[in-house]
C-alpha cells in the first residue's frame, strides 16, 4: 500500500482542526447570542413592579401589576419538590453505593432509576395528573410538588451517587473499625463528607425543576394570587412566560421577555450561590 504524502496527511489534519475550532466558536456564539437576545429584549421592560406586585386586573391586557405570584410559586414548587425528592434520594444513593450494590435488587433499582431519568417531563405531567385525579385532588401546590418530586428523584439520586463514590473507602473503614455502626458511619461520616457535593446536586435538581413547565402545566394550575395553603393552585414562572408570550398584545409580550430574563437570572444566581456555598463547605472535607 502506498503511504499518502506527508504534506497531504498534515493538510487533512489541518482542515479537520479548522472545522473543530469553527464548531467550538459556533457553540460559544450561540450561547452568547441566546443570552444577548434575552437581555436585550428583557431588560427594557424589567422593572421593580414586576418583582414586587401580583397581577392587577387586566394585567394580561397590558395593565399594571407584576409576576410576584409566579416567582414565589416557582420557588415554592421547586423547593418543595427538591425537599420531597431529597428524603428518599439520600438513602437511595447510599444504598446504591453500599456493599449490596451488586445484588439483583440493587440492579433492579438502578435500572428503574435509569429508566426514570430518561422519561420526559410531559409524561411525568400526565402521570401526575392521573395520580391527582385518582387521589381526588385539584390542581394545587401539593400536586405540583409531588409531580416535581417524581421528576427530580432520579436526577438527584444520580447526582448524590456520583458524589458518594468520591468518598474514600478508608474513611468508612476507619469509622467502622472504631466501633461505629453502619448507620452512624453513613450519617455522621459519609453525609458530612458529601455536603459540598450535595449542595451541587440539590442545585442541579432545583434548577431543573424551576425551569420545567411541562410537568406543572396540568398539576399546579395557574392563579394570580400567592398560595397560602398546599391545596391552592399556584402560578409558576415558566408558565407565566408561556402565557404572556401567547397573548396578542406587544406590551404583554415585552413582559414575557422580561419574565424569561428573570427566570434565567434566578437559575444563574442559584447556580452561582451553590458554587460559593459548596466551596465554603469543602473546608470540612477530608481528602
Amino acid at each position, binding site marked *: 500500500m502506498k503511504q499518502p504524502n506527508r504534506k497531504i496527511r*498534515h493538510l487533512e*489534519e489541518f482542515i*479537520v*482542526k479548522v472545522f*473543530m475550532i*469553527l*464548531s*467550538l466558536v*459556533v*457553540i*460559544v456564539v*450561540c*450561547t452568547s447570542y*441566546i443570552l444577548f*437576545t*434575552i437581555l436585550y*429584549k428583557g431588560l427594557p421592560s424589567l422593572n421593580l413592579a414586576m418583582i414586587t406586585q401580583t397581577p392587577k386586573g387586566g394585567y394580561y391586557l397590558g395593565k399594571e401589576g407584576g409576576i410576584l405570584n409566579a416567582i414565589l410559586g416557582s420557588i415554592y414548587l421547586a423547593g418543595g419538590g427538591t425537599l420531597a425528592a431529597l428524603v*428518599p434520594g439520600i*438513602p*437511595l444513593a447510599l*444504598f446504591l453505593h453500599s456493599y449490596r450494590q451488586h445484588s439483583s*435488587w440493587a440492579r433492579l*433499582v438502578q435500572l*428503574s*432509576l435509569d*429508566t*426514570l431519568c*430518561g*422519561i*420526559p*417531563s*410531559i*409524561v*411525568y*405531567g*400526565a*402521570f401526575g*395528573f*392521573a*395520580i391527582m385525579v385518582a387521589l381526588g385532588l385539584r390542581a394545587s401546590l401539593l400536586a405540583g410538588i409531588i409531580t416535581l418530586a*417524581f421528576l427530580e*428523584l432520579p436526577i438527584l*439520586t444520580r447526582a448524590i451517587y456520583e458524589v458518594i463514590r468520591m468518598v474514600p473507602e478508608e474513611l468508612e473503614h476507619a469509622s467502622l473499625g472504631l466501633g461505629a*455502626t453502619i*448507620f452512624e458511619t453513613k450519617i455522621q461520616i459519609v453525609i458530612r463528607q458529601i455536603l459540598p457535593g450535595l449542595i451541587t446536586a440539590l442545585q442541579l435538581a432545583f434548577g431543573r425543576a*424551576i*425551569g*420545567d*413547565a*411541562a410537568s406543572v402545566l*396540568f398539576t399546579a394550575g395557574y392563579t394570580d394570587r400567592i398560595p397560602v395553603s398546599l391545596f391552592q393552585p399556584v402560578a409558576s414562572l*415558566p408558565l407565566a*412566560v*408561556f402565557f404572556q*408570550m401567547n397573548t396578542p398584545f406587544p406590551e404583554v409580550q415585552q413582559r*414575557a*421577555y422580561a419574565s*424569561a430574563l428573570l*427566570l434565567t437570572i434566578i*437559575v444563574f444566581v442559584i447556580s452561582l450561590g451553590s458554587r460559593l456555598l459548596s466551596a465554603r463547605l469543602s473546608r470540612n472535607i477530608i481528602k
Partner: protein
Amino acid sequence: MASWLLLLHSKNRANYYKRRRIIDKYLRRCLYMLTALPVILAMALLLTLLVRSWPLLSVKPLWQLFSDQAWLPTQGQFNFLPFITGTLWVTITALIIAVPPCLLVIIYLSEYAHWATREMMKPVLDLLAAIPSVVYGVWGVIAIVPWVKELTLFSQNYLGFIPILSSKNPTGFSILAGSIVLAIMIGPYIIAMGFEVLSAVPAGYREASLSVGATRWETIKYVLIPKTTSGIIAAIVMGASRALGETMAVLMVVGNVARIPASIFDPAYPLPALIANNFGEMLSIPLYDSALMTAAFILLILVLIFNIFASLMLRRIIQREKS
C-alpha cells in the same frame, strides 16, 4: 457526638451498645424500604398510563390509531400518525444539525484543546444546559423563527424543486425552527457524554499509535473512533431521547398543525406539544382524555426504546473493557 445519640444515654453500658445496635438495624431497615420507591414509581408510571389509555385502546384496534381519517376528537377519530411523524421529523432534523459539530467539539476538547480552553468551555456548556426550555422557546420565537421565515422564501424560490426544501408555509414556525432550537438544547448533553466516553480510552492506545508515526488526526480516525463507536452512538441516542420528549421550546416554535409534514419548512405537531396544548379542554369529549394518555404512552414507549438501545450500547463497551 451528634445530639440524637444523647437520647441513648444510659447508665448501663451493655444496654447502651445493645440499643445502638437495635437502632442501627431498624433505621437501616426503614431506609432500605425507601429503595423500593423508584421501582414502584417506574411500574406505576407504565401501569397508570396504560390503564388510562385503555378506554381508547379497547374500542379501537391498534392499527386504527394510525389509519383513522384525521385527528377529529369531536367525531371520535384519533389518528396519531401526524404526531408521531412530526416528533420523528423534528428529532431527526435536530440530530442532523447537532451531531456533526458536537462530534468535532468532543474530539477537539478531549484530544487537542489546551486545558485552559477545556476549563473555559465547561461553564459555557453548563450554562447552555441550565437555561430553562421555555427561555429557549422565547429565544426561538424572537431570533430563529423570523430567520427561518426568510429562509423559507429563499428556498421556495431557488431550491423549490427538492421536495423536502419546498413549502408554502409563510410563517417561519416550522420543523426547521424547532430542530435548530432542539439541536442547541441537546448539544451540551451529547458533548458531555461523548467527552466522558473519549476520555475513558486509556492513554496507552494514543501513545502506541503516535509512536508508530501516525498524526494525531490519524490516531483519532483509526484508533479512537473505532474504539468508541458504540459509546458515541449511545451518547447520540441519549440526546435523541431528550429531544423526543422536549415540550415547551418545541411547542412554541414548531407551528402545531396536525398534518403529516413533507418538508422541513412545514409546520409539525409533535406528541408532547399535542399533550400540552390539549390537556385542559378534553374533559367534555368522550375518549379525548384517554387519547391524550395514549399519546403520553406512545411517547413513553418511544423514549424507552431509545434508552434501552443506548444502555445496550453502553453495556457492550463495559463488557469489552472487562475482557
